[in-house]
């Protein structure tokens, strides 16, 4: 099995996208799911928010030259709701984002993001509002995301963040891909399968 690098801290400039309930159709529109690989996703991130129907830029924050190398996305509440498409966190990662800080996350998105090593941290309402304002005001603002200590810092301010321990522990250990551990449970899996009556049709 491949080993993964621990995800302990992420530092860099940020893009803030205020607004709640950003769904995965916005993050990556369904037409870009017509593919048998994940290779093209980075450039398609938030495509319809960024470009008009003739492909001209709408001046979206993601396309501000000063934020071209941003590695932290700051979003609102219930980020990533809707479709289960893993293309959404993968598109964020391929576009260079290494962490998402938001008010809260939809569950399937959160699991998919954790599974590809993209940490998702939640902030309290007032802290998120302050961080969002700071990021909007200064494209060069360095945001530090400490996954291990669950703190987000920027511009001399530091905020306590939340993340379920089941996700935090695997990110900082680099064991966020559970496949090898699941494979180790094969004998017990087969016992449960037999107890549930599976295998009779084999």
């Amino acid at each position: 099995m491949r080993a993964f690098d621990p995800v302990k801290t992420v530092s860099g400039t940020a893009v803030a996208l205020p607004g709640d309930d950003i769904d995965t159709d916005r993050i990556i529109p369904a037409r870009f799911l017509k593919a048998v690989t994940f290779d093209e996703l980075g450039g398609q991130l938030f495509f319809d928010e960024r470009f008009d129907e003739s492909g001209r830029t709408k001046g979206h924050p993601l396309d501000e030259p000063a934020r071209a190398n941003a590695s932290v996305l700051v979003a609102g509440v219930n980020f990533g709701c809707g479709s289960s498409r893993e293309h959404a966190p993968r598109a964020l990662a391929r576009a260079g984002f290494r962490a998402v800080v938001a008010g809260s996350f939809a569950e399937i998105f959160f699991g998919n993001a954790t599974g590809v090593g993209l940490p998702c941290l939640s902030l309290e309402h007032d802290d998120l509002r302050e961080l969002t304002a700071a990021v909007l005001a200064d494209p060069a603002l360095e945001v530090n995301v400490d996954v291990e200590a669950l703190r987000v810092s920027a511009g001399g301010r530091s905020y306590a963040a939340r993340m379920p321990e089941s996700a935090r522990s695997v990110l900082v250990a680099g064991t966020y891909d559970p496949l090898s551990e699941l494979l180790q449970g094969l004998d017990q899996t087969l016992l449960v399968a037999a107890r549930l009556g599976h295998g009779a049709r084999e």
Partner: protein
Amino acid sequence: MSRPKSLLDKVWETHAVRDLANGQTQLFIDTHLVHEVTSPQAFAMLKDLGLNVLMPERTFATVDHIVPTHTRAEPFEDPMAQEMITALRRNVAEHAVPFFDVGSGNQGIVHMVGPELGITQPGTTIVCGDSHTSTHGAFGAIAFGIGTREVRDVLATQTLALSKPKLRRIEVNGRLGPGVYAKDVVLHIIRTLGVKGGVGYAYEYAGDVFDSMSMEERMTVCNMSVEGGARFGYVNPDATTVAYLEGRRYAPTAAEWDAAVQSWLSFGSDTGCEYDDVVIIRAEDVPPTVTWGLNPGQSVAIDEPIPSPQDVSEGERPAVEEALAHMGLEGGRPMTGTRIDVAFLGSCTNARLSDFVEVARFLEGRRVHPGVKAIAVPGSERVKAECEQRGIDRVLQTAGFEWRAAGCSMCLAMNPDKLVGDQLCASSSNRNFKGRQGSPTGRTVLMSPVMVAAAAVTGVVSDAREVFGVRREVMA
């Protein structure tokens, strides 16, 4: 007697393989449903790792998202769609996974195929790389959507790493009024609890209304659990569940039947079991409901004014303003009278036999309004055949609906069925997200199939009870 348990407790306990290092549970998955959009990368990962599908006989595949519904001729006009169906056919053949291909008589939206074939059974765990897997909860299954990496995990190990959610019981008691459908019930629940109200919870739907619902109605509600933030929702299995499953292809045979039924019913929540939350809704309070905004929680009763930015809190205002601007609507007025361009009957929420039977009852002798493009897309080849046997296709076509082949169609427009420009669609589907129906400026108004029919014949969003002369009960 032991502590009373919920269905969630019982399914979790019987399917727990072991505890994982991070505190999650390794959970056994009875049934893995696969479709063409979220599986090719998972099969490729499997190959890269030198792994096989552990239980191909617990895995079932069909093709639904990308299939055209106006023609089945291959190669498809869209070469990428052809590549995706080809990849799925190759993967299922290589791994001996049962596959319900186009033309098999069993193809359809994956969440219709499972129940129709009796694959979906009470007390089981069911996953699929699709958020609307929650549909299968109608049978008392724990069924939820997963990402592509998790599809790989289930293919390779028939298990998943998962945390057990909290449980909220949602009771709807009393009797629904005339012209009020299962779709209205779930839209009303989402409006009441919010699109994120269910995050961290599983929903148990109960009460008089669910007890008297058909399986198809229960599926409509469970389907949209995820739109309320709950990864899954279920209805406890009962005689209705058992009757639905009898005789279906993958249902237990006669010799095993009685034991299977006893086992299924034993999974139902015990009286007195613990819930983390209980919500009680009066059926009489559920109106015909339509969305006005950009998520399924932004809805109103058909005769109720939609919100104005000045009526809502400062926190909600930007979302309301964005939604009204995108939808081209003015706050403070009801949705009735809003002109529609397209009427869409379809999707895993509402494309079952009973949906088309009910719509046909009202469309007999009526015509789709000039200028409205109306399409009816059965969710499965089986529903299509059943409708055609009963002449329902003729009624719909005579009324001016196009009668299509089975697929996801305009619910998410990964096929040629798309809105164009800022067309407004009266839709029986589940998501009114910006751009969802294929045009970035397209507009979606979610509603029950009968309300879609009413909008189709009048050309505007309408109260179906008035259009079709359904008598309103006098409220007590």
